[in-house]
């Protein structure tokens, strides 16, 4: 069971969270303009990396907020969590783990 650092609530057990799969797959602004291949790729193609993975989590049984996380899919080490809508932080080698937000931190 992982420990996941919710940007709002700090370190919490995985039992409170739900994983939403790969992050940064924005829904196209105008889906009608995509051809079937492009739309199929949006719906289904996934990076599925062995290594650092950007993925979505929701603190379902907590603050109820979605956020993004970088996690190493080999070690399952959580590298960083960051708010929805912000770009993927540098995930290069040696990236320091995010400092867990204190449970009392303001958004």
């Amino acid at each position: 069971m992982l420990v996941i650092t919710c940007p709002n609530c700090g370190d919490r057990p995985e039992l409170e969270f739900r994983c939403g799969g790969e992050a940064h797959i924005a829904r196209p602004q105008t889906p009608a303009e995509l051809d079937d291949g492009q739309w199929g790729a949006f719906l289904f193609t996934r990076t599925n990396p062995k290594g650092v993975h950007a993925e979505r989590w929701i603190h379902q049984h907590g603050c109820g907020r979605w956020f993004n996380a970088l996690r190493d899919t080999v070690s399952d080490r959580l590298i960083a969590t960051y708010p929805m809508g912000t770009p993927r932080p540098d995930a290069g080698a040696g990236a320091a783990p995010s400092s867990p937000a204190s449970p009392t931190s303001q958004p």
Partner: protein
Amino acid sequence: MSQTYRLPQGGRIDRSQPLTVRFNGKALQGYRGDTLASILLANGQHLVGRSFKYHRPRGILSHGSDEPSALLSVNWRAERGPGFTDPNNRASVVEAREGLETRSQNHWPSLEFDLGAVNDLLSPIFVAGFYYKTFMWPRKFWDSVYEPVIRAAAGLGKAPEVPDGDRYSNRHAHCDVLVVGAGPAGLAAALAASKDGAARVILADEGREPGGALLHDLGSTIDGKPASDWVAEAVATLDARENVVVLPRTTAFGYYNHNHVVMVERVADHRVDAAAGLPRERLWQVRAGRVILATGSHERPLVFANNDRPGIMLAESVRVFVNRYAVAPGRRIVFATSGASAYTAALDARRAGIDVTLVDLRLEEDCGPELGELRAVGVEVLTGHTVVDATGRKRVTGLVVAPIGRDGRVGARRTLPCDAVGMSGGWTPAVHLFSQSRGKLRFDVELDAFVPGQSVQAETSAGACRGLYDLAAVVADGFRAGGAEQPVEASASRTGFQPARVLPTDADPAKVRAFIDFQNDVTAKDIKLAVREGFESIEHVKRYTTTGMATDQGKTSNMNALGLVAGLLDKEIPAVGTTTFRPPYTPVTFGALIGPSRDALFEPVRKTALHQWAESQGAAFENVALWKRAWYFPKAGEDMHRAVSRECKAVRETVGIFDASTLGKIEVVGPDAAEFMNRIYTNAWTKLEPGRCRYGLMLREDGYVMDDGVVARLAHDRFHVTTTTGGAARVLQHMEDYLQTEWPELDVFLTSITEQWAVIALQGPKAREVIAPFVSDIDLDPAAFPHMAVRTGYICGVPTRLFRVSFTGELGYEINVPADYAESVWKTLWERGQTLGMVPYGTETMHVLRAEKGYIIVGQETDGTVSPDDLGLGGLVSKVKPDFIGKRSLARPDLVGSGRKQLVGLLGKDPAEVLDEGAQIVATPDQPVPMTMIGHVTSSYHSPNCGRSIAMAMLVDGRSRIGETLYVTTPSGFTTATVCEPVFFEPKGERFNA
């Protein structure tokens, strides 16, 4: 005769507390502090079981959790009835107490005389993997003959047959430092780590008391004190610290992600007087800031012919039985070793008055000071000797040894008579938990063992589990790991060994049966065969021979197997590989893993506010998701069919009352609520006026129907959304996902109100008549309050959101009232309704009535591959909105093409015959298998209001097949049915406007 092998003094047993356990019906005496193993040995019982494959007589190999052979079935609480027996308990770890009833396993008719031992004679055939090479013909014989025979022979003990009489509990815990193992290193680590009172420390050990190997160490001193005194002081210090939790009898068995270490505490089994509610075991799920592994090491057996005879045990185990339990495993013990530690065991045995001889594989000059020390007390030591055989069958009677010449040749045999053997092939650090933590193991040639290398989690190993065997070094390492280096003085330990694989022998190696895995009966020969057949990875060898796969998980066998394979392949050990250790370290009961999730707490049972009333009326219930829903309300003597028929007719003739509380409800609030609804649903919401309702259809992004429900607009910025019962959570999550991640700019908030509002549905011509007297602040006149409208007001004086909706086609209301008031309101309506012929009805009637009208149920007509158009609901898909969830997918080639299944009605040829839901439809049964199936029945009922059976189906190009007669499967064959529009009752659809 009792306890003839009990030494007159010593041991950490309480001789003032005698006790009796039973072994195969025989009463054996012992003392508090004993294990089953020590009691058996005290009573001279070495033969305690039969091996897995060959049914060879087996005894006790070790004193701890690495025991592979002495597995017993134990009835822990015979006095409390059945439900307290389980198999495969290691005699070496079961704490003896009054009343335990134990039995040996895997033999017939008896332990002493086991017909299964015939397998031993067939052992030349039953080699590793023999079953892959035979039993193939005749083909049918595998299932009917070979396999049943193999199965009956395998399997050790008998599974429990009745439900468990015990309870188990669970505890999540957190600490700054978790120390696993309370031997010298673990105690030192805990002492150091807990010095800072702010640091929360948990110290867990699988033994009954902390101390580890020091509990049987009579000779060593630490900081000038006898080891046992040092332990006592350490434990007292830790007990006095409020920041320390010491957990004896607690095995850390799993090291999971993010320093999640899972342990099982044995709470009740050792207590004679355990209170009935006391958990048998408690699962500790510990999240530790840092973990210190002080898990010690395991001794290796020596591999020689017949090394499995009862009475042959590990040298250190002899020492434990003598020192800790005051039991002599034999009167005459031969120690066989390739290292120094066995000399300590021999010295202790000698000191206890046991006749001792020691055989050392090492040459005289390779031995250390231990040689002189042992000889000094008059013990014969044969250096440079190998063991070539053991005599005796149910108990060892002698060890056959022979000198090894400088040229490696084995000299003349000599039999050393004995009644017990202590063997030691060196030591293996217990790196199981380290490996589970995914730390990388490193092979240390000097130590001939894998030791912890690079850590992956916040974890440190200390002491013997990283290859330190000298006591001073071990204790110092513990302090270091605990964060406070300090000098330690301790008496010198006898350490060091020469790796011994398979001992040299003068016998034909092909005939020698020298066991490596004692429980699974894997011999050196088997491993050689595997390698010869090309199984070169250690994982292949394990799987082919089953070595290391027994209940001890290879604790005593892995290194011997690995060393042998490496030798055979002429490779370094790391090149052969090592096993990745997986949880659990020792077997864990399912009960402990489950904890409270049993019986009433297996899963929440969700009941509505009206459940009790329905129950009082004798309702039958069905499970829908986590909910219990009233299914039908049988009157005396009615079966389901009759009850449902009566309910169905009553609703259309008078009125029915139905509990619809389980439908999901979501309040969508905010200035952008309508825009949000537009994006989520296929249909348009902007123009829906407050006070009106609309049926909404929701797709997944892949274009398939996800959920549906009636939505009421309560105000310009407030919608009351309903969902299916099973879809409630899913829909809310779906909405939140899009709202937060795709459209964060929308000012909308979602709140689940499923449980705020209980929903009482009144359906039928007299519905208004029933509610009218109780409703206030709402004009019920149809003109003022038409079908598909919503009003807020009061009923029976409590607030209500009153929906005028119909899932039956009749005049209907769905009365939302705050849940705690629901029963009271319901009873009031019921009281009045009875005078008007009202009936309560359940979900089955609800299903029939909606099917009569052709209304779909998501999850019944749909199955996750159905589009709105398939359902004939294309009209609900807005052509105007540029986008909504799933819109783009509806344009994909497969969704616009022909040949899709479409919703139709079906009328069976025989009006009395109800088609099977799930039945398949074919154009003609006169075709070969596999047949072309063109559809399936989704809903099928007897319709009392139509006076016949009706069905709905998904049928390929169904809407163009109206009128066709098709074939539908029945349990015995086919029947015919005619395709029709999916509306069976009052197609005009005006009754709900009444």
